[in-house]
């Protein structure tokens, strides 16, 4: 049932994907049953379906076409400020954030005002599940477009990063506490605010194991940019941020669980230290200390390549191809001589070595074989270094195409072209020298071909033949 509350958008359908994905579904499935839930903002219909199972669900959306596409629940269609506090809910879910709750009919509300309205519809002790996008998140840092210059149909009030959204997990918690919403759980989210596949609490991010977490962040970010250009490789940025201890600060978003609590009570949702959904859709909950130790193979390989550390590079390649030849380098943790899978649910990758060759070349990384610039030959070199005699076939490259990496490739190509042209001139000069030498040699050969005796005998033979012919002529 759809109820128009005012300020609805009859012609507009949301252009960007709604909040959704396996991981959010996993979280929402675990909410208590028999409660009243408000789902504010665009969420995937499957999420609403999951919630509607033994719960009383109301949705709030601004777009009328989107409202019509929602499952059979109560739908409030209109703008946020028309939401009254006549109805109170046990849980308010705003996993798309508060950015898509107001319509053009509304006075634009800032983040705090929006949160305040949502909080009002919570019953005392109720729980708010809120996603807050980080303006300095990895996804923004690699974005080729600026949020402040967005041209989409809902960018009528685009402030970009000049808004009042808290910019750090601790400030976010403080801001919510100031609104009477103490935070009971918080997690940094990758790869995109609306559809995270990795959630890690700041405590986990500060205690580690950072290498494994960095690898999870890189793996989460990797498939998030299909066919989309980026400024630089988000995998490296995400992984480096985590490894350097600013993972939570540079995460694309934070997911918070806050309570409108008179007194501390049981939170409706708890967040595991880390939670991730692998490519196969399996959700893995990681308790503290259950992540494997060790360094991610891909990063170790890259650092050995950059450092031209051939002995280490060969040892790693050989170990990898002996122990886990079907695992992508980003899914292998190396601890001494032990090679372990980071996420065993990731499907086999028979062309893992070839993919790493692509990573080296496409990423513009320095490596110990700078003269090898085509991927088939680099694969052969890597295979040889790994102790494999028959090099594997080439494969497609994976990962997003970064403008910075493209720029590096462009300048490398320019350099190679300039070298090739110069080499052509070099060879031409060499050729001229050789031709001159050959010319001199030919003259010498002509001058000395046949010695004096030979030439005298030849002349004698000619004279003798002439004399014989003359005699024969005389006889006839």
């Amino acid at each position, binding site marked *: 049932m759809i109820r128009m509350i005012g300020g609805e958008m009859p012609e507009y359908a949301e252009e960007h994907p709604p909040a959704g994905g396996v991981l959010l579904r996993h979280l929402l499935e675990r909410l208590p049953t028999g409660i009243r839930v408000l789902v504010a903002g665009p969420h995937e219909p499957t999420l609403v379906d999951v919630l509607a199972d033994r719960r009383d669900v109301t949705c709030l959306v601004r777009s009328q076409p989107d409202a019509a596409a929602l499952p059979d629940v109560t739908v409030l269609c209109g703008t946020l400020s028309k939401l009254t506090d006549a109805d109170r809910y046990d849980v308010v879910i705003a996993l798309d954030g508060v950015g898509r709750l107001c319509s053009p009919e509304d006075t634009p509300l800032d983040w705090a005002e929006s949160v305040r309205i949502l909080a009002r519809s919570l019953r005392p002790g109720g729980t708010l599940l809120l996603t807050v996008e980080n303006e300095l998140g990895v996804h923004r840092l690699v974005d080729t477009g600026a949020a402040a210059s967005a041209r989409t149909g809902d960018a009528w009030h685009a402030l970009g990063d000049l808004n009042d959204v808290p910019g750090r997990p601790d400030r976010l918690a403080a801001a919510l506490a100031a609104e009477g919403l103490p935070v009971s759980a918080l997690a940094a989210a990758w790869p995109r605010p609306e559809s995270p596949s990795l959630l890690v609490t700041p405590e986990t991010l500060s205690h580690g194991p950072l290498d494994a977490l960095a690898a999870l962040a890189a793996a989460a970010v990797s498939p998030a940019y299909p066919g989309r250009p980026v400024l630089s490789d988000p995998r490296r940025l995400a992984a480096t941020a985590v490894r350097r201890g600013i993972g939570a600060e540079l995460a694309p978003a934070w997911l918070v669980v806050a309570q409108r609590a008179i007194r501390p009570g049981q939170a409706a949702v708890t967040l595991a230290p880390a939670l991730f959904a692998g490519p196969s859709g399996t959700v893995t909950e990681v308790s503290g200390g259950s992540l494997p130790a060790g360094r991610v193979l891909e990063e170790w390989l890259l650092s050995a390549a950059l450092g*031209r550390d*051939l*002995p280490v590079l*060969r040892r790693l390649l050989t170990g990898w191809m002996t122990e886990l030849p079907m695992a992508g380098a980003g899914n292998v943790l190396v601890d001494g001589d032990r090679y372990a899978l980071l996420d065993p649910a990731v499907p086999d990758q028979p062309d893992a070595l070839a993919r790493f060759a692509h990573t080296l070349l496409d990423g513009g990384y320095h490596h*110990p*074989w*700078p*003269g*090898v610039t085509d991927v088939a*030959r680099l694969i*052969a*070199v890597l*295979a*040889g*270094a790994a*102790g*494999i*005699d028959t*090099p594997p076939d080439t494969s497609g490259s994976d990962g997003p195409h970064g403008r910075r990496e493209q720029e590096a490739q462009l300048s490398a190509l320019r350099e*190679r072209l*300039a*070298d*090739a042209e*110069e*080499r052509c001139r*070099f*060879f031409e000069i*060499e050729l001229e020298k050789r031709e001159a030498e050959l010319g001199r040699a030919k003259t010498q050969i002509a001058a000395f071909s046949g010695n004096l005796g030979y030439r005298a005998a030849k002349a004698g033979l000619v004279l003798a033949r002439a004399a014989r012919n003359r005699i024969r002529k005389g006889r006839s």
Partner: protein
Amino acid sequence: MHHGNHFYGHAHVLAGYCGLDPASPPRIDGYLQHGWNVVDGLGGGTPYAPGSTIFVWSERTRRRAWSMNRPLATVIGAPFLYLLRSEPPAPRAGLRSESDHTSPREGEREGTIWYPFHGWEGQQVSGDHHRLIDEITATESGPITFCLYWNEFEDRRIRALYERAGRVVCHGYRGYMRMRTDPDFLRGQLAELRRHRRVASNRLSTAVFYGVAAGCEPAVYGDPMYLDKEDTPTADRIRREWPELHGAAPDPETARKIVLAELGDGHLATPAELRAILGWAA
């Protein structure tokens, strides 16, 4: 590519290591470093085709080459080390076959093989050979083998001077423009080195490095002599940089560590890897 790749049969050694016909090594996609040096791996005056790979012996040389605007330097290790891998020293006793004349058993080493600093096609060496020989005979306690480079070996006057002081050998001609290349040059040198306890020269040079790698104790002493139009600051730089390798009796362990690093020990490629690096992949 460059005919220098065939000097001393280097390309032939690598082809053999790669499982290819050592008699006719395929074209190498770049320049092989053919002697130890303190520049970019190329011999002085080698015409460099821009954008070509230089296959250098050590990581240190690669870094230096990079700083000299040769970013394509690639470390593969010295061909001599590849030879050492395929020709391990004969066991101490008993197991050697009758026909094996090349590798003496470990423990049969004796005396010093002494490499006087040499010239080449383009530069002659000048100095007082008499004085040098006197200093050598005064320093060395065991028998001395003088190994002359072909350049001096063919000079009967110089050869006679050394013949008066000891045994004189020559490892042969290194080859030039792919003519008269002796593909067994290094093999012969290795066998000769393995007969001696010490390797010495009046300059820190390739032969001393090979000798140490082959198990000799090094020494660098005596009048260093000079090449025509030589860049003497380079020679001085070498003495300053590697004092541990200079003198009549440097510490053998320290010397061995330095020498192996300069030859690229630990950096040798597998045969399959080397084939792909050199552009020999099938």
